[in-house]
């Protein structure tokens, strides 16, 4: 998530200095935040062309909400266009190769995947929020989409939460005070985040790479399986420490600036099944896909072919949701497998839980779930499954298998 470069040193400086500007309440505060956000995206962009495409892609949803009258009818068209253009801009190589197209852009737009989530949320929620009295000018919109705190890798903000948080205490003037204990806690969290990213995850990444490289020269199948499991062990912990470390940095730094960003992790590797895991890992992503992919597809299935089979509808909708979410994570065929295995894990967890409830009854099932041995066995099983399936993220595992 974070690589060492002059850009990341600039990011550290920004996190240190931004609280002095953002804790100060005056009418120009949101303009100052916008200038900071535009400075970050301009520095991050590799070229003017990249910046121009990003600007157009970001502005279209705002212009749609602002000027289009029959929004309800045209919303699906805009969402489909946003997804299609995202697929193109992100450069989904395996899709292009299936379609025999050679259209991949020579650059990647930073934060594109997260822009997509925010743009869809904005387009779908703004009509309702307007009715509740929420206003949104261009500055507010750009601050929401481009916020440097959540630009790189989330957590995924919703416009309502952003607007409520950014505009709180606006009737006050001058600096919003911070208690000593809170100051220590937030600084400690930022330092812990950097420690997780640059020390712990860097060590884990080194060993994950070491064991992955060793896979290419395995002498026997058994050796390859053992090496793959060791690689998966280091890789899954690398993902946790790197991503949760990044979240600690931005949540802590935003807290210092008086902004609140939702928590994204809650000890995910202590989950007892894959459903629970996704409620504790990358929480803001899980909530977003629940609201915008799972719920519409579940309702669609319930209102149509699976009207009397709620569990089957739930299973299909969950599989579809996590399959799509998996593909969203990356542009190679490995992420298709990643999405498939996450969907499969979720469906198996759901069906097993439903079957168990029927077999044991409510009380016995509760006793079973609270049994200490069961808790630890299911935790180990879930963690093993997750660590193996997480191997498809960041490493070209599929070409290795196909070889």
């Amino acid at each position, binding site marked *: 998530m974070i690589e060492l470069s002059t850009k990341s040193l600039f990011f550290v400086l920004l996190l240190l200095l931004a609280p002095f500007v953002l804790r100060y309440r005056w009418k120009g505060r949101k303009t100052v935040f916008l200038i900071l956000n535009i400075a970050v995206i301009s520095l991050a962009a590799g070229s003017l062309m990249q910046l121009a495409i990003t600007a157009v892609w970001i502005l279209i949803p705002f212009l749609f909400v602002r000027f289009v009258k029959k929004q309800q009818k045209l919303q699906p068209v805009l969402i489909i266009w946003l997804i299609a253009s995202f697929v193109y801009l992100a450069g989904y190589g395996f899709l292009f190769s299936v379609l025999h197209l050679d259209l991949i852009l020579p650059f990647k737009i930073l934060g594109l995947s997260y822009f997509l989530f925010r743009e869809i949320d904005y387009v779908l929620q703004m009509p309702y929020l307007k009715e509740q009295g929420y206003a949104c000018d261009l500055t507010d919109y750009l601050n929401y989409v481009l916020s440097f705190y959540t630009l790189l890798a989330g957590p995924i903000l919703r416009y309502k939460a952003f607007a409520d948080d950014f505009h709180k205490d606006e009737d006050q003037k001058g600096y919003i005070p911070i208690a000593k204990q809170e100051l220590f806690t937030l600084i400690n969290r930022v*330092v812990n985040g*950097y*420690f997780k990213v640059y020390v712990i995850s860097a060590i884990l990444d080194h060993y994950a790479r070491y064991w992955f490289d060793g896979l290419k020269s395995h002498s026997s199948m058994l050796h390859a399986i053992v090496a793959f499991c060791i690689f998966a062990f280091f890789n899954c912990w690398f993902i946790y420490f790197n991503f949760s470390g990044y979240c600690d940095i931005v949540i802590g730094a935003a807290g210092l600036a008086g902004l609140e960003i939702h928590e994204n992790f809650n000890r995910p590797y202590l989950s007892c099944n894959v459903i629970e895991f996704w409620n504790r890992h990358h929480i803001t992503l899980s909530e977003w896909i629940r609201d915008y992919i799972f719920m519409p597809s579940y309702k669609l299935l319930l209102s149509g072919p699976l009207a009397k089979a709620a569990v089957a509808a739930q299973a299909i909708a969950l599989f579809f949701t996590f399959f799509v979410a998996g593909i969203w994570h990356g542009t190679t065929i490995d992420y298709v497998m990643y999405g498939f295995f996450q969907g499969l894990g979720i469906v198996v967890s759901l069906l097993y839980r439903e079957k168990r409830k029927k077999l044991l009854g409510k009380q016995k099932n509760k006793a079973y779930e609270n049994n200490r041995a069961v808790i630890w066995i299911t935790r180990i099983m879930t963690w093993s499954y997750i660590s193996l399936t997480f191997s498809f993220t960041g490493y070209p595992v599929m070409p290795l298998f196909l070889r």
Partner: protein
Amino acid sequence: MNERFEAKDILKILWIGLKTAIVIYAVFQVSNLTILYQGF
């Protein structure tokens, strides 16, 4: 922030400072050697 600093706050600052120093050391190692674990 008008609260007074106490003795235990010094310990907290030292603890945060120690972790910061390790991070800076690790970053320095990464930037020069690219193999982080060599320092540990």
